[in-house]
């Protein structure tokens, strides 16, 4: 067998390969050669083969068959063999393989070897990949080496000890005595690794930390070392760019941080040295800045006096002006951490931070943006907003959503005037309109509604904004809503804040119709537009016929959502014209939904629902009602129309009992419901959850789509699926449509679905489409559940099903827990 080729040769050969396939072939050939060579148990060439194997491993080829060979090399007497053997072990083996345990004995022997470099290799390997068993076995040896006078070995032993402690924390005590003298070393390598060891011990165990603080007087020792480093003048062996061993300084500062945290005495002891380091360190090179950075972090973390903290923040401020982008990045990150605690000090550097918004580096821009939002307050809101809006204009798309949300939040908190607020919102909508988050739209609408005196101004500006361009959906949605509400103000030219524009009713309808037709409008936007057009029928005087026509056209739209609306609006025109003006009245000031109860639930009139019992009644002015009794009065005293039929009402566990009894009566005594209600009104047995029941109509179902549906129940051939819709304008409302299907061969009759939800929710069950679930999945029962979830808690529901099947009565209780997060978040 010819001698295996040298590593050099192999590398040269592989480099000549022109394709991946060629390379693979060469490597496979060589692997085969190596394998046969291993089989021959050839000691001379083993190390060469393993070296080649490691090279191929780095390129990504499998090398596990060399693992045992590494062990053989480790056991050899030659240093060369051991060197490559240990390297192979570290690269190829890990504690998951049983093979590695075989190393333990070798390592033990090598730890006591006469040659220090062999001992060093053993320490290195143990410290890199030693398993817990190995560490337990060999900890004693490591501890011995920690006390040796050989600095080469001592520093390696220190790091090895760190690894041992990480793997087997109980052994920490064992190393304690050895640490006593560690800091008396002159050798910087040993000092460095000793500080690392001490840091590890302090971080792991609060007892150790306390011990080091009090008994060992660690802080004064460290302070002394640090002082020597700074004062000692030029020392060629430790010098890096004019600073004496910056790495050691940084390590010591970090340990000081841990010691001084939450401890007044220690913090006081280090105040002076920190001030000294902060003022004396050269900042022209990166090493100096690294030390300063560490100093700043330490000052901010311990209980330092305020003068020192101000000094630290000023250093960070200077960092912000540094040309080196790394320094700027690091400064912004630290400022972000300290802005909560030292707000005023950071404020002083606001202008520099704002300048960083214009930086080229994406990471820096992001941090500057976050920091800017943290710094906005009532005094600087105008100036900051100008900068932030400019930033919004010019930043990368990945920032726009966050920036827009941040601006809205800041504006809401600190807006100096309503007009300014509206202007700011307009600016955001027009510059980053398509990046605004969906939930911003209802918030904005609420805001606009509540700024009563600004309605005319707002609608005028919004109108002008979408005249040119109606592609940005959130902007168009808000604009459509406003035009629908305040179109009369727009047409009458009543604006006080700025020059009123001359707009005719037809022009307004033109723009709304364009939105409806446009390819860029989403389904949601179209819904907004159609509703707006409908609302204008009461606000405009000359164009009602046009509106009627538009509405009737969409009665045959392919989009089910639009069709639904159009059909109902048509019905309003045709059959219920007398109610139209009341229904389409101006919205009152909305209150933010509190947890006490729904504010916009009840409507003025009842309304029968057209045959496909569904979810979208025409919008009308919500009357905020906080007490169930008012509700009752309205319903009781309403002679005009029948009550909305709701499926099972029952005795709730709470004090609304009388209400529901009455409703139960109303239902039973023949409400001329258009949808069939199940004949008996069964009582729900009292599960621990609150039961459903207010007879009410949530409004304004501008629905957002896209929530995955779930199978809530599937047993004995009965399957119930839930599909979800969320209201855009009222994010606390979730509309669940259930579909019950039956895969058995017999129909299920008298089917009743009941549901209950936890106390923080409110539930409303509308009538089901029928009470028979036909067999063989030939049809389904549909029923709508409306859930109000003002606290945005995780949706849970218990359902009870009763039906007759194959001649016997069936009943089942189940819990539904697999609601997708989009349905309640």
């Amino acid at each position: 067998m010819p001698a295996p080729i040298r590593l050099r040769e192999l590398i040269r050969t592989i480099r000549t390969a022109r394709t991946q396939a060629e390379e693979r072939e060469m490597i496979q050939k060589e692997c085969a050669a190596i394998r046969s060579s291993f089989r021959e148990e050839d000691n001379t060439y083993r190390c060469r083969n393993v070296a080649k194997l490691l090279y191929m491993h780095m390129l990504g080829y499998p090398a596990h068959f060399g693992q045992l060979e590494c062990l053989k090399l480790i056991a050899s007497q030659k240093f060369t063999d051991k060197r490559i053997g240990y390297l192979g072990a570290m690269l190829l083996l890990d504690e998951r393989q049983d093979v590695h345990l075989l190393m333990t004995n070798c390592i033990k022997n090598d730890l006591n070897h006469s040659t220090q470099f062999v001992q060093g290799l053993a320490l290195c390997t143990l410290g890199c990949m030693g398993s817990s068993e190995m560490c337990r076995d060999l900890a004693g040896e490591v501890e011995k080496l920690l006390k040796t006078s050989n600095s080469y070995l001592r520093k390696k032993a220190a790091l090895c000890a760190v690894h041992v402690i990480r793997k087997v924390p109980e052994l920490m005590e064992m190393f304690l005595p050895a640490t006593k003298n560690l800091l008396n070393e002159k050798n910087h390598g040993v000092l460095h690794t000793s500080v690392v060891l001490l840091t590890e011990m302090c971080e792991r165990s609060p007892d150790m930390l306390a011990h080091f603080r009090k008994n060992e007087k660690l802080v004064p020792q460290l302070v002394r070392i640090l002082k020597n480093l700074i004062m000692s003048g030029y020392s060629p062996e430790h010098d890096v760019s004019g600073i004496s061993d910056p790495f050691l300084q940084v390590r010591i500062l970090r340990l000081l941080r841990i010691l001084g945290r939450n401890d007044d005495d220690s913090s006081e002891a280090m105040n002076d040295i920190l001030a000294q380091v902060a003022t004396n360190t050269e900042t022209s090179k990166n090493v100096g800045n690294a030390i300063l950075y560490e100093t700043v972090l330490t000052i901010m973390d311990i209980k330092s006096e305020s003068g020192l903290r101000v000094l630290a923040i000023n250093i960070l401020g200077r960092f912000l002006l540094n040309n080196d982008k790394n320094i700027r990045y690091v400064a912004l990150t630290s400022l972000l951490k300290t802005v909560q605690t030292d707000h005023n000090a950071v404020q002083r550097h606001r202008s520099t931070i704002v300048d960083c918004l214009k930086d080229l580096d994406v990471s820096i821009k992001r941090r500057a943006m976050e920091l800017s939002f943290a710094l906005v307050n009532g005094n600087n809101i105008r100036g900051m907003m100008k900068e932030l809006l400019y930033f919004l204009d010019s930043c990368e798309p990945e920032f726009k959503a966050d920036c827009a949300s941040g601006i809205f939040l800041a504006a809401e908190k600190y807006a100096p005037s309503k007009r300014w607020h509206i202007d700011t919102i307009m600016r955001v909508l027009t510059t980053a309109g398509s990046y605004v988050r969906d939930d911003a739209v209802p918030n904005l609408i609420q805001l606009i509604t509540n700024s009563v005196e600004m309605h005319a101004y707002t609608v005028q500006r919004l109108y002008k904004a979408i005249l040119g361009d109606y592609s940005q959906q959130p902007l168009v949605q808000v604009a459509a809503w406003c035009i629908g509400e305040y179109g009369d103000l727009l047409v009458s030219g009543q604006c006080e804040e700025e020059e009123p524009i001359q707009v005719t009713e037809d022009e307004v309808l033109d723009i709304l119709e364009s939105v409806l037709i446009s390819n860029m409008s989403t389904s949601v936007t179209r819904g907004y537009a159609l509703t707006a057009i409908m609302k204008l029928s009461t606000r405009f005087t000359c164009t009602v016929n046009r509106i009627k026509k538009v509405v009737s056209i969409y009665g045959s739209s392919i989009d089910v959502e639009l069709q639904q609306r159009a059909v109902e609006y048509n019905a309003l025109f045709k059959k219920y014209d007398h109610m139209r003006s009341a229904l389409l009245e101006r919205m009152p000031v909305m209150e933010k939904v509190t947890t006490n109860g729904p504010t916009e639930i009840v409507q003025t009139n009842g309304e029968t629902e057209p045959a496909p019992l569904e979810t979208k009644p025409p919008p009308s002015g919500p009357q905020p009602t906080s007490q169930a009794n008012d509700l009752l009065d309205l319903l009781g005293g309403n002679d005009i129309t029948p009550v909305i039929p709701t499926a099972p009402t029952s005795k709730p566990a709470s004090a609304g009992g009388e209400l529901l009894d009455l409703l139960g009566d109303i239902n039973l005594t023949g409400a001329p419901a258009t949808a069939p209600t199940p004949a008996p009104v069964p009582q729900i047995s009292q599960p621990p959850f609150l039961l459903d029941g207010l007879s009410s109509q949530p409004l304004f179902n501008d629905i957002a789509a896209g929530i995955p549906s779930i199978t809530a129940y599937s047993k004995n051939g009965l399957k119930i699926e839930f599909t979800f819709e969320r209201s855009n304008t009222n994010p606390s409302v979730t509309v669940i449509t259930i579909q019950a299907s039956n895969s058995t061969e017999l129909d299920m009759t008298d089917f009743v679905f009941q549901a209950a939800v936890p106390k923080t929710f409110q539930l409303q069950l509308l009538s089901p489409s029928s009470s028979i679930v036909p067999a063989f999945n030939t049809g389904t029962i549909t029923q709508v559940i409306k859930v109000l979830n003002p606290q945005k808690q995780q949706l849970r529901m218990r359902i009870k099903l009763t039906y007759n099947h194959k001649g016997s009565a069936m009943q089942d209780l189940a819990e539904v827990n697999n609601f997708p997060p989009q349905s309640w978040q």
Partner: protein
Amino acid sequence: MIQAILVFNNHGKPRLVRFYQHFPEEIQQQIVRETFHLVLKRDDNICNFLEGGSLIGGSDYKLIYRHYATLYFVFCVDSSESELGILDLIQVFVETLDKCFENVCELDLIFHMDKVHYILQEVVMGGMVLETNMNEIVAQIEAQNRLEKSEGGALG
């Protein structure tokens, strides 16, 4: 703690791969590739810190890299290391390589992969910084090389 040290060239070919935490081989290669793509995208006037990729570590880990001629030196570290300090450490490592190989270039790393590992071992051990004094490191390496030579050193 340093989780990994990667050196690769401008085309993504690995020249030194050292992990201080265990990953299976395919993941190791994936990490190298992913890191390369992340680092390649960076302009020259951007800072040297990257939030890590999804494969290596988690949100606590950063990639700190430096670009020298045709090679990228990437250290993946967690929050216990000072970012600026690691930048200096990379500089120390490269300068040490320079001293050991005399005007080091990519070819030296290619043909002497094992030696580079040995040098690295004197700088970083078990994911922690061992020695930062260049002269010390060089002296120790030279002593070990002499020991190898005295045995006849049969590696090639």
